[in-house]
């Protein structure tokens, strides 16, 4: 736009307002409930290997979620969050990326992490905050992170990862910019995907992150998981506009809405979004629509704020839908699938039992990593604490026996 105000000056002599719901946003849908391709849709080009890995990841996460929900009810872990209903949204989007693309998630994206290769034991060690946890036992269960797998450690404050994803993606782009022209000189090798919920999109960081990504042309895929609820607050008490997708247009960002229970639609949209981000050097917004089938977390009980009727009318299982398609492709044998589920359940239980007896982190991990090296005042506090624990070992059984 070639005017100081950076607007399209379509002069109009009639007094007219644009309606707040003027956009008529379509939702991409490829798979039917029965696992067929919609007659007017085109299936994305997805290999058997990827499709099976995608399915196995969703299957694993559903079983892990079921077991850990139970483990929390038994008092074995303090907290858990299920991905119920959103497995396809998270897994299929991760499957459409490169292994070295950065994932900056909110908290319910364990499936993306497992797709990357995070092992069952790594999940368990984090949830039991034991000494084998990569996070050194510092964060509540499900706050995973792995440098090796390019999965940024989860942070509880909502939406903070959104402008960070913009900055991270900008870093990924810098070496591809021609210093003289300021233009993109080559395809960006790795991009960033940023997940967040429709509730988190009310945070100021959402606006800051999307606006800066658009202005500075950062290759980031914003993936809004609109699951209808922010804990107990329904989407109609969260915003008035047409979902999150309508905002993308406001920021000047290419945007698409997809059926989040449709693994093929999510895969196709994310694949295309990645192509746009890496070749055009600009952000893309994807809004996925998939109902949160479970509670917000183990500390939540949806029966207090949503009706049985509503729940009954929103029971689409994304895993089932994709499984039916795989069976029709002859890529999955139902008997093998049932057997696999049994053995996965056993593996999960065994891993849980292993992790819960691993020792807690050593006392040293209380003060390490606050800075790259402990500052003198903190070192002094640590020495004082060690002396105190040595004098009262019975009061601090987790660490007393291991103090050097």
């Amino acid at each position, binding site marked *: 736009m070639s005017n100081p105000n950076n607007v399209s000056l379509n002069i109009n002599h009639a007094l007219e307002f644009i309606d707040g719901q003027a956009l008529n946003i379509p939702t991409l849908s490829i798979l039917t409930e029965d696992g067929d391709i919609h007659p007017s849709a085109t299936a994305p080009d997805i290999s058997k290997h990827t499709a099976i890995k995608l399915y196995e990841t969703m299957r694993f996460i559903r079983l892990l979620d079921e077991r850990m929900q139970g483990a929390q009810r038994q008092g074995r872990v303090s907290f858990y969050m299920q991905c119920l209903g959103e497995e396809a949204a998270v897994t299929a989007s991760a499957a459409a990326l490169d292994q070295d693309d950065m994932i900056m998630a909110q908290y319910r994206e364990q499936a993306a992490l497992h797709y990357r290769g995070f092992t069952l034991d790594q999940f368990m060690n984090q949830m039991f905050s034991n000494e084998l946890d990569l996070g050194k036992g510092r964060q509540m269960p499900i706050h995973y992170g792995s440098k090796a797998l390019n999965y940024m450690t989860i*942070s509880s404050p909502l939406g903070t990862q959104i402008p960070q994803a913009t*900055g991270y993606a900008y870093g*990924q782009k*810098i070496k591809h910019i021609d210093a003289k022209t300021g233009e993109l000189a080559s395809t960006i090798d790795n991009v960033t995907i940023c997940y967040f919920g429709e509730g988190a999109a009310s945070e100021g*960081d959402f*606006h*800051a992150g999307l606006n800066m990504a658009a202005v*500075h042309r950062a290759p980031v895929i914003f993936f809004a998981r609109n699951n209808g609820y922010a804990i107990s607050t329904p989407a109609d008490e969260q915003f008035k506009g047409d979902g999150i997708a309508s905002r993308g247009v406001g920021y000047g960002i290419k945007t698409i809405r997809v059926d989040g229970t449709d693994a093929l639609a999510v895969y196709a949209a994310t694949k295309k979004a990645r192509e746009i981000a890496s070749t055009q050097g600009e952000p893309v917004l994807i809004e996925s629509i998939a109902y949160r089938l479970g509670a917000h977390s183990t500390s939540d009980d949806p029966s207090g704020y949503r009706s049985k009727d509503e729940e009954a009318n929103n029971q689409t299982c994304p895993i089932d839908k994709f499984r039916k398609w795989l069976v029709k492709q002859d890529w999955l044998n139902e008997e093998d699938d049932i057997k696999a589920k049994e053995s996965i359940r056993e593996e999960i239980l065994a891993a849980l039992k292993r992790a819960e007896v691993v020792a807690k982190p050593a006392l040293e991990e209380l003060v390490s990593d606050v800075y790259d090296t402990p500052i003198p005042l903190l070192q002094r506090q640590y020495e004082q604490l060690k002396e105190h624990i040595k004098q009262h070992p019975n009061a601090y059984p987790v660490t007393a026996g291991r103090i050097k």
Partner: protein
Amino acid sequence: MAKMNMLHAINSALDITMDEHPQACIFGEDVGYFGGVFRATSGLQEKYGKHRVFNTPLTEQGILGFANGLAAFGAPALAEIQFADYIFPAFDQIVNEAAKFRYRSGNEFNVGNLTIRTPYGGGIAGGLYHSQSPEAYFAHTPGLKVVVPRNPYQAKGLLRAAIKDDNPVIFFEPKRLYRASTGEVPEEDYSIELGTAEVVQEGTDITLLAWGAQMEIIEAAAQQASEQGISCEVIDLRSILPWDVETIAKSVIKTGRLIVSHEAPITNGFGAEIAATIQQACFLHLESPILRVCGLDTPYPLALEKEYVPDALKVLAAIKQSMDF
């Protein structure tokens, strides 16, 4: 060596960093072609390109969110907040994100590449919102480093150290001294170690401690005191977090008296932390109570700024009070 004001010295430190690291970026409001409202980044966009020195939209939380991401990626992120008074929308990104990035990830990730520059302090007729000294808020946050220079030489050396330090650092620049303070500054690269105070004048009767723009106030008070036969030891703390307890304690053990002075309101100002720590470390050596000469517990005023600020006369009065105790 070259004669520089503080802005030249800061610009030189940034220039060296941009030249050293091909992915380093400078960004903030108006820092691009304009070179910042105080001109600290003057000429750098022309030299390093729009993709590495650029204006951001007016969103402090966005600037710091972006900076955290860029730093986590591994590029030196040199973020400017136009006035320290406007840093608060970014408080969450600094306190909950930058400060905890390494700890919460078990050192899988860190934002050691982050440096936040921001002008602070009064003396420019800026009233409530162009005068604040918010260092104490950040000093309460493990994981951050907080640094304040007093002159051009210190500014360049400390800023280079802050940039190279592998932790997020907030660098508060005394805007009143940007052009007022000049001195000889090496054109080449050098660093001043963070976390170390500097004894700028030795003395025997009483220790005066401050940082940043307040240094010239306590130096003036020390001069006036010496005319009355009182020998002041004057110390620049330089780093608020981590701070150099040892140098201060050593001085107070010698003089038996301490006055801490800062522009920020007295209650819960960083002077309170210093007083508490030093009374514990030096209790049996103290000849008088530790005194604080600070701003009043009010928002920063405009018409009555002269009455509000902890000027040299107030410091001198405190010196006499301490000596006469």
